[in-house]
Each structure stands twice: as structure tokens, then as C-alpha cells.
């Protein structure tokens, strides 16, 4: 057996545990959902199997398109807001002295050791009528009552929930940027805006693309935040899927909607990949 073949074999063997995990925990459930999305349901909530396209046909109802559109809008908005704020935070951290950076990164993560639901509830307290923000507003004479429920509260807590996901990839790509490039840009007469627009943003493009992707995709699946902070009047597609699986006891229809969301997510990932490749190519050319 030649050396390369043995290496190949060893490599393949080492892939086995990871492959099994992905197969059992990712691919199998996805295949089950995909299969269920073509199944026939009965009014009692049973899954009768069989094959039908009815579930997908039902999703053509404008009601679903409306919720889908709203969710996509929300996800795009959240991806942009998170990436912009994430860029600012990541730039701040990346330009601090090297030995202070780990501490700052740790500060970004610490709140996330607390349960997601608990943090969402704490936003209700912060933004609610007895909270500090309203108290401050009253103190300076702004007649405010409560920020919950509101769209602003939803956007704010979505930003809070996904910010670390945006900070890390941007920070990772910024760390690779040589600090002397900033000085070079300054020497060549670039101001603050030009330094960012022509040096930092292009050089951290792959991090920015990952950030957009990593915040956009999970926002589509969020369902607790819109209920608790938005009043639940404008459901996201995640809420709709929960309703279909539980109250409407229609697993196949819920599965079909999940598949649509899944395809949308895959398209986004593919697009982000293409964008990153084009940008990287341009840079190296």
C-alpha cells in the first residue's frame, strides 16, 4: 500500500464519526421533513403518508406569501443592522492592543451563557413601563409609556440576540489585516471614510458575507421574540410553522413550509458564497 493511499484511508476513517453525526442529526431529520412535506394529513392530525402536492399548493395562498415577505424583510433588516453594528464592534476590538482583545471578546460572549428566554424576558423589563428607559424618558419630560410591544423592541432584541454571531467572523477577518495598512492609507491622504471604504471593508469582505449569512438564516426561524416583544400581531414564518405543527395539527403542511424556508436559506448561502468568491477574486487580480 502506497503512502498516499494509506493517508487517504486514514483520512477517510477520521471522517467517519463526523459523517455519522451529520447523517443522524442533520440529514435524516431533513429527509423525514422532506418526505412529510408530500404526505397526506387527516383532520385528526394523523400523517397518512402517500404522495400529494396539495401542501405546496396551499402555500400559494397570498396569506403565506405575506408572512413570508414580512419575515424576509425582517431577516434582511436584521442581517444589515447586525452586520453594521458588528463591524463597528469588531473594528473596535481588532484595533485594541493584542492582549486586551481576548477580554473584550469574552465580554461579548458572557451574556450568552444565560438562557435565551431569560434574556428575552429581561428586555421586557428593560423596555417596559417600569423599566429604566421609560424612567429616563419621563425624567427628561418625554411622555412615554411602554416600548413593549413594538416593532422597535423586536428589532432591538433581534440585534441583541444575533450580534455575537456577526462580531466573530468580522473580527476574524479584520485580525488578518496588517495595521500598517491603516497608516499607509493615512499617509496617502485617505480620511476616515476612505480608509474604511477602500481598505477595511474590502479586506474583511469574507467576514462581512459570513455575518450577513449567519444572521439572516436563523432570523427566519425565530418565533419567541415576535410574540414576547412584538405582541405577536405580526407573525414571522417561524411562528407560522409552529402553529401549523401544533394548533393546526397539520404536520405535512408545516413540513412543506419548512422546506420552502430551507430552500430559501440554501439560496442565501449559495449567494453569499458567490459574492465572497467574486470579491476575493477581484482583490487578488
Amino acid at each position: 500500500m502506497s503512502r498516499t493511499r494509506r493517508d487517504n484511508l486514514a483520512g477517510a476513517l477520521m471522517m467517519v464519526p463526523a459523517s455519522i453525526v451529520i447523517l443522524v442529526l442533520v440529514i435524516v431529520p431533513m429527509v423525514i421533513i422532506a418526505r412529510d412535506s408530500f404526505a397526506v394529513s387527516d383532520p385528526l392530525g394523523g400523517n397518512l403518508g402517500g404522495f400529494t402536492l396539495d401542501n405546496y399548493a396551499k402555500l400559494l395562498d397570498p396569506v403565506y406569501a405575506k408572512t413570508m415577505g414580512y419575515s424576509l424583510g425582517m431577516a434582511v433588516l436584521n442581517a444589515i443592522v447586525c452586520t453594521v453594528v458588528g463591524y463597528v464592534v469588531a473594528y473596535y476590538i481588532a484595533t485594541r492592543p493584542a492582549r486586551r482583545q481576548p477580554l473584550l471578546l469574552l465580554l461579548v460572549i458572557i451574556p450568552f451563557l444565560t438562557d435565551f428566554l431569560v434574556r428575552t424576558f429581561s428586555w421586557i423589563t428593560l423596555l417596559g413601563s417600569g423599566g429604566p428607559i421609560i424612567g429616563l424618558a419621563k425624567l427628561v419630560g418625554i411622555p412615554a409609556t411602554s416600548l413593549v410591544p413594538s416593532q422597535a423592541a423586536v428589532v432591538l432584541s433581534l440585534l441583541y440576540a444575533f450580534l455575537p454571531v456577526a462580531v466573530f467572523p468580522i473580527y476574524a477577518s479584520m485580525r488578518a489585516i496588517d495595521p500598517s495598512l491603516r497608516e499607509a492609507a493615512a499617509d496617502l491622504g485617505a480620511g476616515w471614510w476612505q480608509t474604511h471604504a477602500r481598505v477595511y471593508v474590502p479586506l474583511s469582505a469574507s467576514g462581512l458575507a459570513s455575518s450577513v449569512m449567519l444572521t439572516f438564516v436563523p432570523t427566519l426561524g425565530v418565533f419567541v421574540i415576535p410574540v414576547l416583544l412584538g405582541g405577536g400581531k405580526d407573525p414571522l414564518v417561524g411562528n407560522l410553522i409552529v402553529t401549523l405543527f401544533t394548533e393546526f395539527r397539520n404536520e405535512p403542511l408545516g413540513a412543506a413550509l419548512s422546506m420552502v424556508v430551507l430552500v430559501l436559506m440554501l439560496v442565501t448561502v449559495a449567494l453569499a458564497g458567490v459574492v465572497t468568491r467574486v470579491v476575493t477574486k477581484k482583490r487578488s487580480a
Partner: protein
Amino acid sequence: MKSKALAAVGVTVVAALALAGCSAGSGSTSSGGSTKLHIYAWSGEIPDSVIKGFEKETGITVSVDNFDSNETMISKLAAGNSGYDIVEPSQYAVPLMVQRDLLAKIDKSKLTGFDNIAEKFVNPSFDKDNEHSIPWVWGTTGILYNEDCTGAKVTGWKDLWNPKYKGKIYMLDNMLSAYIGGMQVEGLKATSTKKSEIEEGTQALIEQKPLLAGYNSDNYADLVATGDACIAEAYSGSASAKAVASNPSVHYIIPEEGGTLWTDSFSIAKNAPNEDAAYKWLNYTLQPEVAALATDDGASASANEAALKLVKDQTQVTNPAIYAPADSLKKSEFIVDPGDALAYYQDGWTRVRAS
């Protein structure tokens, strides 16, 4: 590449079949002297004191899992081989589970103390002769309001349609519960199965939506107690009772247009592995002094008539957020499963939510 992908699909299919096979092969081993009992119940409805007492008296080890919706419970049982002996469905879920053959018929001759159950839960509309369910706790769907905020007494559903409270009104985030208000405010029965009537209810809910702060089944009681909400459709029980107790301006009422009852019952799962222990559980919980603990330790209303006078804190029995007064319940009906009309409700509710 292609053959690899095909192989992956093949393996996946085999794995899926294997999983399906596991759940399909449900073996039932019912033994005479079981030492274990597996219960699947609503969270917070069986106080620890009841479980401890049962374990002490019978020497049977109890394990309890909780669910937060009937649908979750049903799908777990329907998947097969759940291993549960006792389950706790709500009234509308009982016929659904009977039709899907998930519940065992209860042999009344093995029960003692069934005559302790209050009259309105004996032979109920959802389960003839209590063949599959023994009511444990009950409650109502009504209105929780904060008088400081409304500035007036609230009497019925129409107040949840009052523009005066715009942005301070909450409805329950649950289709059938929201339709109770939507139907009864129009003078219709909450259990209607007529398409045209359900459409009227849908229109009422769509009309109401701009007035709402939101749909909420999680923390509405806190919101009313703090005054962030003036008025909310609410379930009776511990959350509402706590809100009423914490603030003298907070009241729980049964709306004058009607109101509805719910009840959560103990049932024996089909092919229960420890059927014998399950009957011991039913008999244990039928005792008035045990049933009274549901109120004392769980702030739920007991379906056991004989238990009422045994409740230690009698203010709980007169608290309308736990025990609705008998005269307010005259018009109340049990919410039952709408059957085929479910499609009309679903269609309507989807439109309400997207409007």
C-alpha cells in the same frame, strides 16, 4: 460524486426505516404488580405533594414528564411506544385521542370514589359516561382586567372590542381560545361548526386586531397586574390567581355573553405498560383529601366535589380566578373539537393573523 450522493441517500433511507421500525414495534407488557408509573401531564397541574403521597402509599416509583399543549402530547403518543401509563388530555383532546385509538377504556368497576366527581364533569359532552377520562382539574376562559387602567367595571367580551382601550388589549395566542371571544361577542356559540357563523367570528377578530397590543398566552397576567395591559382574555388558574392576589385592582370575570369551561382529565394510555399502577393512580387521586391538594398546592380548581370543603385555604375556593362562581357558569359550555369545521377556523385564523 454522484454515486457517493446516491449512497448517502440510500444509507439515510435505511436509517429512516430503522427509526420508523423502532417506533412501530410497540410491545406491551402488562404485569400484575408494577412498581413503576409513567405520567405525562400539563406542567404545574400535579403538585409534588400528590406524587410523593402516592409513592409513599403504594411503593410505586413515579416519573412525570410535562407538556405545554395537547397537540405535543398527542403527537408523542401517536408516534408509538411512548411508555406512558397516565396522560392528562384537555376535554377537546379526549375524543380526538379516542378516534386515533390512543386511550384505553377505563374499567369503572376497578374505581372507588368516582361519585366524588362534581356533577358537571360526570358524563360530559366530550366523553360519554367518562369511558376514557376522569376529570382532575378544571377552569374557565374569561377576562382579566386592571380597574385602575380601565377606570370602569368590565362585564363582557364587548369590552375587548372597546376603542377606549386601544393598544392595551391582549387576546390569547391560541386559535380556539381567541375564537371564544370572537364568536361570543357576536352572540354566537363558541362551539359553532357553521361556516357562515365562523366567518362572522373571523370578521370580528379582524376588526379587533388594530385595537390589540397583541396575542399572548405567556405573560398576559403579569402585563395586566403591572398595568402594561388593561384587559386580556385569560385562562383561570395559577397565573391569573396570582395577578388577582397581587393587585386589588385586578379582577377575573366570566364574560356575560357566555364563557367557556375547560377540564384536564386523567386517562390511561392505550397499551400502558403499567396498567395496574395506572388504576392505583386513578383511585388515589379520586380521594377528596388528595384532590384538595390540586387547589392548595397547585392553585387549580379540583373537579372533585367532595374535595372543596377540605381545601385548607378557603379563600382559594371563593377566588373567581380559580373557582368561577356557579351562577356565572350557567351559560358556559365546554370547548369541544370542531371536527371537520376545524378547516374553517384554521382558514379564518390564518387570515386574522396575516391581516
